[in-house]
C-alpha cells in the first residue's frame, strides 16, 4: 500500500473543544457530550431528505421515511434563523420545527436575550394536545454555568418538574457540577420529590474523563480520547448499583476528509455492534448514509440507507 492505514503521518495540532479554551465549562448536560457524539445514529429502512435554502434566514426540509420498524411517513421541517448575529456561527433567535402527516409537531425555539443568558423552549404536540414542553434558561458566567429548566409545568394542576444545574471550572483541568431535580404535583408521593446528582469532567489536551453519579446508585462514566488525527474513540459505562445492571460500549469515529467520508462504529457489552457510514458525493451536494446493526444474541441484523440532497 502506498500510504499507511490512516494516511496522515504528520502531527497536526488539533483544538478539540472551544469550551476548553475559554474559561466557561459549558452546560451540565454537555458533560458527556464528546463521548455521546461518537455514538452512531443507527436507523433501519430508507430515509430521504431534501434541504432547500430559501434565504439566508430560512430553510425548509422534506423528509420521507420508509421503514418496517419505525412508523413511516412524510415529515416537513423548517428552520428560521434571526438577525441577531453574535459571532460567525451563532445567530439568534433560532426557531426549528417539524411536523409529520398526522399533525404531530416538534418545535425548538432558542434565543439569546443577553450575551450571558440563553433561553430554549421545546414543545411537542401529539394527537392534537400539547404532550410535552420544556423551558431552559442558561446563565454563562466567567467560569461557571448555571441553568434552570422547567418541564411540563402545569399551573392549573400545580405539577411539573424543575431542574437546576450548576457547573464550575475548578482548575484548568477539572470541572465540577451538580444537578437538582424536583418533581411536584398531586401524583407525586408526599406532593414533592427531589433528587440530586454530582458530575465532573477531568480533561487533558487530547482526552476527557467525565461522569455523573447519583445517590440512587446510578453511575455513568465516559472516557473520550483523540488519537492520531482521523481517529477518535470513547468508552461509556452505565451502571446501576442498586439493581446491579450495567452496560458498556466502545465507540469510535474515523474522519477521512480526503475521501469525504465519516465513519462511526460501536461495540456494546450486550453483544451488539453497529456502524454508520456517511459519504459526501461531491461535486453535487449529495450525502449518502449507510447504517448497519448486528445483534448477535438475537441473531437479528438491520440495515438502513439514507440519501440527502442539499
Amino acid at each position, binding site marked *: *500500500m502506498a500510504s499507511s492505514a490512516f494516511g496522515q503521518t504528520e502531527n497536526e495540532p488539533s483544538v478539540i473543544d472551544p469550551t476548553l479554551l475559554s474559561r466557561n465549562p459549558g452546560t451540565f448536560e454537555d458533560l458527556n457530550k464528546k463521548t455521546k457524539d461518537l455514538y452512531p445514529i443507527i436507523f433501519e429502512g430508507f430515509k430521504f431528505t431534501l434541504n432547500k435554502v430559501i434565504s439566508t434566514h430560512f430553510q425548509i426540509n422534506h423528509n420521507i421515511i420508509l421503514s418496517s420498524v419505525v412508523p413511516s411517513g412524510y415529515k416537513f421541517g423548517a428552520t428560521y434563523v434571526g438577525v441577531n448575529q453574535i459571532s460567525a456561527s451563532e445567530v439568534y433567535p433560532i426557531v426549528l420545527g417539524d411536523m409529520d402527516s398526522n399533525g404531530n409537531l416538534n418545535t425548538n425555539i432558542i434565543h439569546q436575550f443577553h450575551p450571558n443568558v440563553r433561553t430554549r423552549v421545546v414543545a411537542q404536540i401529539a394527537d392534537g394536545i400539547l404532550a410535552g414542553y420544556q423551558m431552559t434558561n442558561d446563565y454563562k458566567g466567567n467560569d461557571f454555568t448555571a441553568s434552570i429548566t422547567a418541564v411540563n409545568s402545569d399551573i392549573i394542576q400545580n405539577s411539573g418538574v424543575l431542574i437546576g444545574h450548576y457547573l464550575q471550572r475548578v482548575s484548568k483541568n477539572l470541572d465540577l457540577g451538580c444537578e437538582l431535580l424536583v418533581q411536584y404535583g398531586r401524583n407525586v408521593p408526599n406532593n414533592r420529590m427531589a433528587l440530586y446528582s454530582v458530575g465532573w469532567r477531568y480533561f487533558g489536551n487530547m482526552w476527557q474523563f467525565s461522569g455523573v453519579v447519583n445517590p440512587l446508585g446510578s453511575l455513568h462514566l465516559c472516557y473520550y480520547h483523540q488519537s492520531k488525527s482521523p481517529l477518535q474513540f470513547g468508552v461509556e459505562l452505565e451502571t446501576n448499583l442498586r439493581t446491579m445492571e450495567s452496560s458498556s460500549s466502545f465507540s469510535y469515529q474515523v474522519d*477521512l476528509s480526503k475521501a469525504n467520508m465519516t*465513519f462511526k462504529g460501536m461495540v456494546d457489552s450486550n453483544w451488539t455492534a453497529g456502524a454508520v457510514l456517511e459519504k459526501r458525493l461531491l461535486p453535487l451536494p449529495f450525502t449518502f448514509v449507510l447504517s448497519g446493526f448486528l445483534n448477535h444474541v438475537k441473531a437479528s441484523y438491520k440495515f438502513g440507507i439514507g440519501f440527502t440532497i442539499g
Partner: protein
Amino acid sequence: MALEIEENIDNLEIEDETLGERLLGLSEMFPETVRSFSGSIFNSSVSASKSLYKWSRSGLWIVASTFTILILPIICEEQRASIEEQQAKQQRELLLGPSAATSSAAGAPMPLGFAPVK
C-alpha cells in the same frame, strides 16, 4: 476319527476369546482408580473438543461479521482515496511534466501560463 472329533469339540468349547474380551480382561490389570481416572479424562476431552468446536464456530462468525461491518468500509474507502490521489498526481505530472528532460523530448509546446517545473 472319533478322537479327532472329540478334540475338535473340545477345542470348539474352549474357544479362543474374541479380541474385545481379551482387551476387557486386560483392563482388570489396572487398579480401579486408574481406570476411572482415564475414563473421565477421555470423556472430558471429548466433550471439551465438542464445545470448543461449537464455540469457535460462533466466535468466528461473530468476529467475521463484526469485522465486515466495522472495519472493512474504512479500509476500502481509504484505499480508494489513495488510488484516486495517485491517479490525480499522475495526471498532473503528465500535464505539467516533472522534469525538463521529459518535456523537451516530448516536443509538445508548453501552454501559456504554466512555468516548467524544475
